[in-house]
């Protein structure tokens, strides 16, 4: 599980000890901060850079592997290239005279720097989202995440929404991710023993290789879910009965402090967003401090 859904790292840091509700709310708040409009590109990159430094600090606090983060970025190359092509080919909206020309072709077609910057901006924001997700999944157990979702869904019980069933389904799904991944690895090894190469080959060969993994995995998955449901029934599971929780989430002082810090960050970045869009001279100030021209 070396992806953004990184496995829980068994440390006991302050981030690990935080209430999962606080972590999820903070994650959402910081993600929203990544998507605020911070004016021109110079402002955007500098302010988002500041936010990224805060995220790195949280990663260090939570002993989250930076290597896992870099590995999760590998998959973004394809998207970056795709975005560059899209932004280069689609004519830019707005006044052309304001745009910064990168390449002007003889037939009149022009590619602007804005396309490249827009791609970098989107990629940067997505990388920040990935890092935040990684922090959450590396420092919170799947069970804690499930309890939190169940708590968040509680108001829906008023309209007879089966929150407990949803929560149980979610917890089982999360519980079986590592099992299925382990099983997938075993099947892949068994098929590699029979000469399957999952890494090389053209598309048709790769599709065929994947079939050798997917079919046995699905067969196992269905048989396992059958056995699991029987085992749950045998142990008296009744989906519509009222259930209590074994793990009680407790909101402590450290959680209050964390919420306060997140509020400060949200306040700070919202103010920067407001200044960059509404206050004249803010761009000049940024230019003065960082030496970056308005772009």
């Amino acid at each position, binding site marked *: 599980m070396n992806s953004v859904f990184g496995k829980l*790292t*068994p*440390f006991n840091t302050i981030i690990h000890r935080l209430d999962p509700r606080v972590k999820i709310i903070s994650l959402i708040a910081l993600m929203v901060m990544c998507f605020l409009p911070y004016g021109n590109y110079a402002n955007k990159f500098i302010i988002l850079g500041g936010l990224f430094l805060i995220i790195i600090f949280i990663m260090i606090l939570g002993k989250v*592997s930076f*290597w896992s983060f870099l590995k999760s970025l590998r998959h973004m190359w394809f998207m970056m290239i795709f975005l560059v092509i899209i932004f280069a080919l689609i004519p830019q909206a707005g006044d052309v005279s304001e745009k910064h020309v990168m390449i002007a072709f003889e037939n009149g077609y022009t590619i602007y720097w804005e396309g490249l910057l827009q791609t970098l901006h989107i990629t940067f924001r997505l990388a920040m989202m990935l890092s935040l997700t990684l922090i959450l999944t590396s420092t919170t157990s799947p069970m804690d995440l499930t309890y939190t979702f169940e708590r968040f869904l509680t108001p829906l019980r008023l309209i007879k929404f089966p929150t407990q069933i949803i929560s149980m389904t979610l917890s089982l799904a999360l519980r079986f991710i590592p099992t299925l991944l382990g*099983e997938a690895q*075993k*099947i892949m*090894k*068994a*098929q*590699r*023993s*029979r*000469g*399957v*190469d999952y890494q090389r080959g053209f598309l048709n060969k790769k599709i065929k290789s994947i*079939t*050798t993994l997917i*079919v*046995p995995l699905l*067969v*196992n998955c269905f048989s396992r879910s059958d056995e699991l449901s029987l085992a749950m029934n045998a142990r008296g599971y009744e989906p519509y009965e009222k259930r209590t929780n074994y793990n009680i989430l407790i909101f402590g002082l450290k959680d209050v402090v964390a919420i306060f810090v997140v509020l400060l960050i949200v306040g700070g970045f919202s103010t920067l967003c407001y200044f960059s869009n509404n206050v004249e001279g803010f761009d000049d100030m940024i230019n003065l401090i960082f030496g970056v021209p308005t772009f």
Partner: protein
Amino acid sequence: MQIKCEKIKYIYNAKDPNSYYALDDISFEIDKGDFVALVGKTGSGKSTLIQTFNALILPTEGYSQVEYFYVTSDKKLFKEKISKLPKEERNENKKQFLIRKKVGMVFQFPEYQLFAETVLKDVMFGPKNFKVPEDEAKELSIKALKDVGIPENYFERSPFELSGGEKRRVAIAGILASNPDILILDEPTAGLDPEGKKEIINLIKEIHSTGKTVILVTHDMDVVMECATKIVVLNDAKLVKICTPEELFNGNDIETYALEIPAFYKFKKLLIEKGYKKDISSINNFDELISVLGAQDE
């Protein structure tokens, strides 16, 4: 020497707080035609070790050698080793998946790897991957299926319709069809009923009698006693003993490795403890023991 392990170390989850040695400084050799039982308690590193024999995993340190194939993650060592080989063998070493044709591996619960629409197609899958022509692959697959005792009228059936024991035999046929020189089986009798277990053991013995090297990972010491010519004992990622079945089962340290004593040796021990007068310490099978006991009765 057909297989050689040289100071193999393997670390799971390296650079992670959960990292641990699955193999620690393992060195031994296996000769052609040996029937080796790889035994040890759960988590001792047996399954990890066998995966280094066909390059499914690369040792973190040291190397495995299967004939002229070298398996290691140490690129410098790999280059050094293959530099001494003839050109053709050197090139084969660069395409490491070729080692899998030489070393067939039957994983635990191999029936879970079946995927094709028919039994025959599933068995043909391996040889075709190793570039065996279609007709030859079909011929080899039919032979392998017959060898494992699958009747001809099953060939066009879906593998998912078969019983557990049949599925397992089909999966073993899937490996045998590639005609490997070395067959590795990871707990091939796990989860089978006594009849199915007996069939698989007889099948493995037959395969061994054709001259192939067999490496068997198992917890079943009765099977080890019946089949193995050499035993490799692993304990907590370390190699603790290489011996014959007789040496291991007549010794006093078998229980320290969390291994079960076979029924025969339990019975022999009981006879000695109860004061049986004749010297039966050198007897290592039921037939001989029965003849000695019968002689006394007469």
